[in-house]
């Protein structure tokens, strides 16, 4: 008795014919044009594209931060609005507040949403414990390493229990080695918490190694150029191990060509 709904599940995020224009005295810039995209529950989507193609704009629209656009953006079938509690946004670099302890940083979202209570606090505490930061709860961000800070930022996002995580070049401020390790950790945590994620990055290897699907955007005005379903044969599906899979290089080469980078 598996009905039609399980054959064609309602996607968690639906973007239909999205067009976003920026106005300035010098003129009008079309950042995204007629972009349509579906993201299923539990999927990890990587979005790559030439710089200035509107990748971050797309995330900001889904996060409810940009509200002037044409087209439709639905999460669980409902139009997003400002302050939607469905999404968790991870900005570039961790943006932990230096004047708050890690624990207070983690509670930031709950505080903003006036949702601090015993249940939500114990959920947040559980996350800190699970991901090895409970001992640092009362430390300040400057006392933590780059990788730990990134984990704290992820827990801050997870603490409000969003349906979908939006990662906007979230690891770009880290050095290369930390970046690989953090990508591994983040991927594992997101999988364990059963979350859906959209990762915007300019790093093709990062996108392939973390995502189930890589979406390539065209030059501005951005729309979808191609979608690659990533299937890698490797023992463990962690971002670090993925890079050793034989198909990895093939995906890399074809996406590289599509991006058509001219320096």
């Amino acid at each position, binding site marked *: 008795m598996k009905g039609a709904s399980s054959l064609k599940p309602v996607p968690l995020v639906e973007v239909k014919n999205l067009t976003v224009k920026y106005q300035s005295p010098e003129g009008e810039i079309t950042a995204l044009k007629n972009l349509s995209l579906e993201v299923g529950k539990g999927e990890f989507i990587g979005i790559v594209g030439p710089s200035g193609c509107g990748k971050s704009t797309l995330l*900001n629209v889904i*996060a*409810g*931060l940009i509200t002037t656009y044409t087209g439709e953006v639905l999460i669980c079938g409902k139009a997003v609005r*400002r*302050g*939607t*509690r469905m*999404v*968790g*946004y991870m*900005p*570039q*670099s961790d*943006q932990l*507040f230096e*004047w708050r302890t890690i624990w207070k940083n983690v509670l*930031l*979202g709950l*505080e*903003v*949403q006036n949702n601090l209570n015993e249940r939500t606090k114990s959920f947040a505490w559980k996350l800190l414990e699970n991901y090895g930061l409970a001992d640092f709860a009362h430390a300040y961000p400057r006392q933590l390493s780059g990788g730990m800070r990134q984990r704290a930022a992820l827990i801050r996002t997870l603490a*409000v229990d969003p349906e979908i995580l939006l990662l906007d070049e979230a690891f770009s401020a880290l050095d290369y080695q930390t970046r690989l390790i953090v990508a591994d950790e983040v991927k594992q945590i997101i999988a364990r918490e059963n979350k859906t994620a959209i990762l915007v990055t300019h790093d093709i290897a990062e996108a392939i190694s973390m995502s189930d699907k890589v979406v390539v955007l065209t030059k501005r005005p951005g729309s979808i150029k191609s979608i690659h379903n990533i299937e890698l044969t490797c023992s463990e599906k962690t971002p670090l191990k993925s890079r050793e899979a034989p198909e990895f290089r093939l995906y890399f080469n074809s996406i590289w060509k599509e991006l058509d980078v001219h320096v």
Partner: protein
Amino acid sequence: MSMSRPQQLVNISEEHFLYLQERKKYRFRVILGRIVLLAALLALWEIAGNLRWIDPFITSQPSRIIKTLALLHSEGALYQHIGITVLETVAGFILGTIGGTCIAIALWWSKFLSDVLDPYLVILNSLPKIALGPILIVWIGNGPPAIIAMALLISLIVAVLGVYSGFVQVEPEKIRLLQAFGASKGQVLQMVILPASIPTIISALKINVGLSWVGVIVGEFLVSRAGLGYLIVYGGQVFRLDLVMTSVIILAAAAALMYQAVVLLEKHLSRQ
């Protein structure tokens, strides 16, 4: 502490030990240098007066300043003068800081307001506020309120501009993070703009301390019958340069103390 100190010394390398010693010696020499400079200047001043290289009637002299201090102390008027001036300065300083921060918040809140007021702020900032002194006296009267208004006038605009520039320098990504959680404008102000701007507000405070003193002394020059500024003007008029010098030195000490109070506040806030 005293138990762990020798332990630390045992654990460090010879080079590090030497480095630390060198550092200690250097800092000692700096402090010594400061004391020697002060003592030498005072001695030179005193001797130059005694040997009539300079006329102590015009330049005063350390020994005369001490005598004047003792005299003012025994008359009891000294503390009243200091008290009035400090009170006026603190009042002008606090009002300037609170008022400046409130206006900066209003400017941050409304882009329209800040755009409308921009040219006025530029003009008020470049206008020498002292020129408004006579107007204040006519409007407010001859007394401490006019002096406090002078101090407020001088420090307010600088406070507004200093604090506002701190507000607009807050990383937009931090604001976006809060907005993505659904924060209202008030929450953004309270949770990120104000706490992130504390260092800028503190440095605005440091400038304001100095400006408030300027305002109060100028105000006292113009109107008052009490206070350190009054003593300086009065001393000048009756040609008692001892009184002028003494007042200036008390003023320097009081201003330095108030500045230190702000530095302590800064340390306290940054430790949190």
